């Protein structure tokens, strides 16, 4: 099964090009240039990784990250930062980002991080399913 990724960045040409390259590498890619759209899309669809720009109009990347993690704790978010400093990246990690990468991003490095995100999400989902099953077994007292 291919890795499902959502790319969120206000630079349309950037998400289109990166999306095309990732698709050529076998990933299933959705793109959006709007933070609000990203929040809507994640309500309906599940992704292995979300690659999110830290600085976007209408909503700060950290704010989007907080909202996403509050609603879907298992979501794996990789932040793209245009800032030279790592301070914002560290702040993002503290808020629950899986990782961050500085622009311009090396696609091989980004792909590696996406693979790690997928693996981590699978573990979290499996753990969640196990807990749900355990709760059902306890509550039914079979």
């Amino acid at each position, binding site marked *: 099964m291919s890795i499902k990724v959502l790319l969120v960045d206000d630079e349309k040409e950037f998400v289109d*090009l990166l999306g095309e390259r990732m698709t050529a590498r076998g990933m299933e890619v959705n793109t959006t240039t709007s933070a609000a759209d990203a929040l809507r899309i994640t309500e309906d669809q599940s992704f292995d990784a979300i690659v999110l720009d830290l600085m976007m109009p209408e909503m700060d990347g950290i704010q989007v990250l907080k909202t996403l993690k509050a609603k879907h704790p298992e979501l794996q978010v990789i932040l793209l930062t245009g800032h030279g400093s790592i301070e914002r990246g560290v702040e993002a990690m503290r808020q629950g980002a899986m990782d961050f990468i500085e622009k311009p991003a090396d696609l091989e490095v980004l792909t590696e991080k996406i693979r790690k995100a997928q693996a981590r999400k699978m573990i979290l989902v499996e753990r969640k399913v196990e807990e749900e099953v355990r709760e059902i077994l306890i509550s039914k007292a079979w």
Partner: protein
Amino acid sequence: MTDTMNRAAIDGLRFFGRMSAAISHDLKNTLSIMNESAGLLEDLALLTEKGRPLDPQRVHQLGATIKRQIQRNDGMVRNMNRFAHSVDDPLKEVGLAAHLEMLLAICRRLTDARGIAVSVAPCHAEVSIVTRPFFLLHLVWLLLEWGMEHAGSGKQLVLEIEPFPPSFVRMLCRGLETLSADASLSQWNDLLSLLEARMEITVDRQAVAVVMPLRIDG
């Protein structure tokens, strides 16, 4: 150096840093697009080597994308250069509208992030003033920051330049809401003093105005 100048210089350095960071962010974005374009060209070359036919149209498109980003980059670097040189001379003649346009281009990402559209109203003829260019830019940025807090529901701020005879010019920041005529503007006193300017609130026009001389003699 006077205390006023000292304080303005320290605050000015902070402003310079903030604008430089905004420029670097924009540059990183254009570099990213060029990076992905170059990467895609490499991908296409690899696929061609493996026998897939190359679509010349796609190569043309990528070339056009790179050219567009280079032009965008060039505009940013030109603005960055003008901004950097704004500290060269204590007093300098500048075209006021062009000076404001340059600042808006530099801080566009910061104003967009607040969801506010900021523009300079077209004027019949450029007004040239002899002023302290860097301190003027700093004052306008502080005014915009304040204005974004007080912007009306239209979320639009317009900088308007109008003559103020005989020897002044007035720059209005329009589009404000919830303005009170006695709002405190004392936080800008240092810059106003260095620019020999004064600030006024015009509630009926939903604006804050900076009245400054056409020429500071130094």
